[in-house]
C-alpha cells in the first residue's frame, strides 16, 4: 500500500492505495523475457477476476516499454532477475506537466509525489536509468554517463533533478523541499569524508550550484 499523508497541506488526509499488481508487497522477481511480455500476457490472459484496472495497468507497462525503445541511449542491463516494476512513464509525464504549469497547490503536491515515483523502482537499475533518461529528455539532469552510474547515485540524481523541474512560479513551500534535497545530496557528498565519486556527479558544479543561486551579487556571475 502506498500511502501519502500530508494533512498540513491538504487540510485532510488522502490515501493513494496502489493496485496489488504494482504494490511493493506483491511484486516478485521476473526474467527479462517475462518483463518484455508482461503487457501482452496481462492483456490477453483469461482471469475472471481481472477488471478494467488490470487492463489499464497492462497498458501502462506497455507505455514504458514503448518509451524505452525510443530512448536511443537507453540499454537494458544484462541482469537475469528483475523485480516486477511499477510503470512510471505516464505518471512522470503528468508530474512534469504539473510541476511546470500547475497551480500552486498542485505543484506542491507534485513535489510530494517525486519521492514515491523515484522510490517505486528503487531496486531496479533499468528503471532508475530509464527515469534518468526521461529527465534528461525533459532538459533536467546531468550530462554524465548514466550507463556507468551506480543505483544509489542514480536515485540521488533522479530525486534531485525531479525536484528541479519547475516553471516560473513556485509556492514557497516547494523551495524548502527543493533545498532540503539539495542540502541532503551535498551533505552526503562532502560531510562524511572523501569517497569515490560516481561519474554522474563529476560535472563541474556541486548540487548547490544547480539552483542558480549565485546571481545574488551584481557583477559576480559564475563565481
Amino acid at each position, binding site marked *: 500500500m502506498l500511502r501519502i499523508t500530508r494533512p498540513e497541506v491538504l487540510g485532510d488526509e488522502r490515501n493513494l492505495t496502489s493496485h496489488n499488481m504494482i504494490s511493493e508487497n506483491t511484486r516478485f522477481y521476473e526474467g527479462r523475457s517475462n518483463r518484455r511480455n508482461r503487457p501482452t500476457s496481462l492483456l490477453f490472459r483469461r482471469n475472471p477476476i481481472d477488471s478494467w484496472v488490470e487492463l489499464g495497468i497492462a497498458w501502462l507497462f506497455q507505455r514504458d516499454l514503448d518509451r524505452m525503445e525510443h530512448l536511443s541511449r537507453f540499454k537494458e542491463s544484462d541482469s537475469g532477475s528483475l523485480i516486477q516494476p511499477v510503470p512510471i512513464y505516464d505518471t512522470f509525464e503528468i508530474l512534469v506537466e504539473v510541476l511546470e504549469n500547475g497551480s500552486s497547490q498542485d505543484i506542491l503536491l507534485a513535489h510530494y509525489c517525486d519521492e514515491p515515483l523515484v522510490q517505486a523502482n528503487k531496486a531496479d537499475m533499468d528503471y532508475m536509468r530509464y527515469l534518468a533518461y526521461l529527465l534528461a529528455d525533459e532538459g533536467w539532469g546531468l550530462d554524465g554517463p548514466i550507463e556507468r552510474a551506480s543505483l544509489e547515485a542514480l536515485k540521488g540524481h533522479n530525486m534531485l533533478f525531479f525536484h528541479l523541474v519547475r516553471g516560473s512560479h513556485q509556492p514557497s513551500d516547494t523551495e524548502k523541499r527543493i533545498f532540503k534535497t539539495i542540502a541532503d545530496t*551535498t551533505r552526503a557528498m562532502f560531510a562524511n569524508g572523501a569517497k569515490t565519486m560516481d561519474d554522474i556527479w563529476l560535472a563541474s558544479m556541486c548540487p548547490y550550484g544547480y539552483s542558480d543561486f549565485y546571481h545574488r551579487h551584481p557583477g559576480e556571475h559564475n563565481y
Partner: protein
Amino acid sequence: MTVFNINTYFTSPDTQEQILDVLISYFDNAAAHHPKPDEAGANTYFSPVTVSFVYESAWALIDLEPTSPLFSRHNSLLQNLATRLRNLPEDLTTSPPPDYLFFASFTYGYRLLNWNSGLIKTETGRDFIVALLQYRVHIPQPRKDIEVEFCNPGNMLPTLNWSQFVEKAGASGVVLSQLAEEPPADSITIDGAKISEGSSREAGDATINVGVLGGQPSYDDTAIHSPSRTGIDEAKT
C-alpha cells in the same frame, strides 16, 4: 523551461546553517586528507566538484551579519583553519604537511577576499589570510596535483592565482613582506618575523616582515603567530 531563483532561500539563516554545518564537516575531514595522486578527479574531495562546493558555500555565507549566531561559528571555523595550517608536522620528511587543507582553505579564503566579504575583515578573518600566506613560507612547494585541481579546475570554474591572492591580501591590508610569488625552496626562516603597521596603509593594515636568512628552513611559529594577532590588534587601534 524557466528556471526560478531560490536566492532568498539560500540566504535564510536555516539554510546558511545547513551549509555551514556541511562546510565545517568538510574542512574537519580535509585536515586529515592526503589524497593519492591517482585519485585526482575521482573522489568527492579531489575534483572540480569540490572546488564548486567550496565556492558555493562561500557564496552562500558571504553576507553573514556580525549579529548572526552563525557569524561567530564561522569565525571559529576560520580560527580553526588558521590553527591547523600553522600546526605543521615537525618532521616533514616523515609526515606530509596538510597541503590538501591548505588549497581548500586557500580557495575559500580567495573567494571571500575577492568578494570583499565582511567575514575576512574581522581580526579572525585577517589572521586566517595571514595563516594562508605563512603556509607558503613554510611549504614553498605544496603538492602540485592538488594545486592543479583547486587552482585550475577547468570547466566553468575560474583559475586561482597565488600571486593575485597575495596582491588582494595586500590591498586589504594583510601583507607578508618578502613573500615571493614563487618562494625559494630553501633558505627561508621566519624567525624574527614581525608585524608593523604599513606606513602607506590605512589604519588596520598589518605588515608581517619575514626575514630571509641563510641556513635551513625554520618552522618556529612562535615568532610569528602571536605577533601576528597582536600586530593586527594594535594596528586596528
